[in-house]
């Protein structure tokens, strides 16, 4: 009963001074809105990166020649892989679902009057499974075409759009590096990769055909990258270890020599990237939380002014028979009502801001209800924290002095 009274009195008081109340809570509104917006956008960024990385193919292990993990260090020369490494991995490593050899070279590709510069990639049909690619139309090239080295190709969306705009390219012949190649399929779009590359800027053709007609004479047998898809029930780090051991053996590395190739898995990349954005999100959230604190001090300031201004009123209440605790509770509830009101406004503002910004930045809107709830609870407790001192001051007023106050 006492609480409801205090709430009623507090609401009446806020209503009496709506303008001042709104200005008072502005700090809280902005603080709550900033925290929620920052965290929401951060979560959106994290999710987008995770989605992009997993669009490479989940449980993917990538093997590249040379050690390129350390930035700034020259790659150095390292022997490329050969096509028979694919079979060796399939046979020699447990838990591998598929292995795709990938060799790539930038080429000018033309169709009729249109032309575009794009990486032309030779691979095997396993590439579709490994890279988790879906087809928009047509088909992927067959094993038989791979073995025969037929000049057939599958286009990514970007290439398809630049060369064919909206017409279907199936059955048409495109030209690059002096060969003419029939389009048999078009891939579904994957968008940007986690590193910002356009994954749809791609032309795939059988590795045999690539080696014979696209690759330079010196690198005719070379395979640039091996992409390994790992079975869901197998730990990728174990596969990484086994592949490393196998490749060391196949490349005849002595135990004291370091690897002249690198093996990494997409899960690891995804984790590294998303942990980075998570740290950034936490940092931004913390900065925003400081503004929440400043908002709390604003409330305390106004409450203190309000207690001084309402000294006579408090005196009247005490004379009428209000208990010390009732006055304390009234002012405390008032502060909490103010800060909660600010919190609600902040949440509202955050929803609008996050939706707007996420749309503008092309991020998915990942609203974390826990953060919303937390921000609200924090804003309410700020009311308790910063409302207590003014409330106690009000409650301890001497009624006689208070009544005499001008």
């Amino acid at each position, binding site marked *: *009963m*006492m609480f409801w*009274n205090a709430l*009623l*009195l507090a609401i*009446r008081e806020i209503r*009496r*001074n709506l303008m001042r109340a709104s200005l008072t809570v502005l700090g809280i509104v902005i603080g709550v809105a900033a925290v929620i917006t920052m965290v929401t956008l951060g979560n959106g960024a994290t999710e987008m990166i995770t989605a992009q990385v997993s669009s490479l193919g989940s449980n993917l292990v990538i093997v590249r020649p040379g050690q390129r993990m350390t930035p700034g260090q020259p790659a150095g020369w390292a022997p490329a892989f050969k096509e028979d490494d694919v079979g060796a991995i399939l046979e020699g490593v447990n838990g591998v679902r598929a292995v795709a050899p990938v060799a790539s070279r930038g080429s000018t590709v033309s169709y009729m009057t249109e032309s575009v510069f794009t990486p032309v990639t030779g691979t095997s049909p396993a590439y579709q499974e490994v890279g988790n690619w879906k087809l928009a139309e047509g088909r992927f090239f067959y094993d038989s075409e791979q073995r025969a080295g037929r000049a057939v190709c599958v286009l990514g969306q970007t290439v398809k759009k630049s060369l064919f705009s909206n017409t279907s390219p199936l059955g048409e012949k495109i030209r690059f590096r002096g060969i003419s190649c029939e389009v048999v399929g078009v891939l579904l779009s994957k968008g940007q990769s986690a590193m910002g590359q356009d994954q749809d800027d791609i032309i795939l053709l059988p590795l045999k055909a690539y080696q014979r007609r696209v690759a330079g004479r010196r690198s005719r047998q070379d395979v640039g990258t091996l992409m390994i898809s790992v079975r869901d029930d197998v730990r990728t780090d174990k596969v990484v270890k086994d592949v490393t051991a196998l490749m060391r053996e196949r490349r005849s590395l002595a135990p004291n020599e370091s690897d002249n190739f690198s093996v990494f898995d997409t899960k690891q990349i995804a984790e590294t990237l998303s942990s980075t954005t998570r740290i950034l999100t936490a940092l931004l959230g913390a900065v925003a939380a400081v503004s929440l604190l400043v908002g709390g001090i604003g409330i305390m300031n106004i409450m203190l002014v309000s207690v001084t201004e309402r000294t*006579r*009123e408090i*005196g*009247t*209440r*005490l*004379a*009428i*028979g*209000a*208990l*010390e*605790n*009732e006055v304390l509770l009234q002012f405390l509830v008032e502060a909490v009502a103010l800060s909660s009101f600010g919190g609600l406004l902040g949440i509202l503002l955050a929803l609008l801001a996050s939706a707007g910004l996420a749309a503008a930045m092309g991020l998915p809107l990942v609203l974390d209800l826990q953060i919303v709830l937390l921000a609200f609870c924090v804003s309410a407790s700020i009311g308790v924290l910063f409302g207590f001192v003014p409330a106690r001051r009000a409650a301890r007023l001497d*009624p*006689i002095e208070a*009544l005499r106050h001008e």
Partner: protein
Amino acid sequence: MLKRAGMTEAATALIELREVTKTYGSGVAAFQALKGVSFAIQAGEFVAVMGPSGSGKSTVMNILGCLDVPTAGEYLFLGEHVETLNRDQRALLRRHYLGFVFQGFNLLARTTALENVELPLLYRGMAVAERHAKARAALDLVGLIGWEHHTPAELSGGQQQRVAIARAIVTNPTLLLADEPTGNLDTERSEEIMALLTGLNREHGITVLMVTHEAQMARHASRTVHFVDGLVHSDTRADEVPA
């Protein structure tokens, strides 16, 4: 805490001061505002407390209103020793037995007359419907029906004091304390307020204690206590004084 039982004993006065002193400050700076005051008020009386400023009439008012405690002596309210009560106990005593009317009205700004009058009932934890009904009845009693939803700024001084009186009597108090209730009003409004207080005293049996420095106003009381220099100088009943 407080027992109503005291009221049934006819012999017991409503309130009684026994050799009450009040000293402010200490040491050389000490100032004795009351130097041993004794007097009693019976239920149903209308007492005017008069005296020049510094005579101790405000101090005695604060003590009678349970806002302050005597330095020495006893203050019995319905037989209860007020000087032994703590702050909250005195607040409850005020809540349940006292009504206050101030010189400056002390209404809550930007708050309607009805809400102002309801305030003491709110502290009693009364339900909404009952609260509204009682507040309306009190406003009716002071002649302000139709003005319930006006805020103090929209009311004249006399009307504001009527609202304040309605707030003081809405709890049906045992004692109504009025501190210079006409101090901020012109003669005509003052007479209206005095007529209202007299009516409440005579027709509703509310005991009234009023502090004033205007003899004109004190004339409405049935008894006048004169303070000079922290002591009761004279204590006269209206019927004892030939007009």
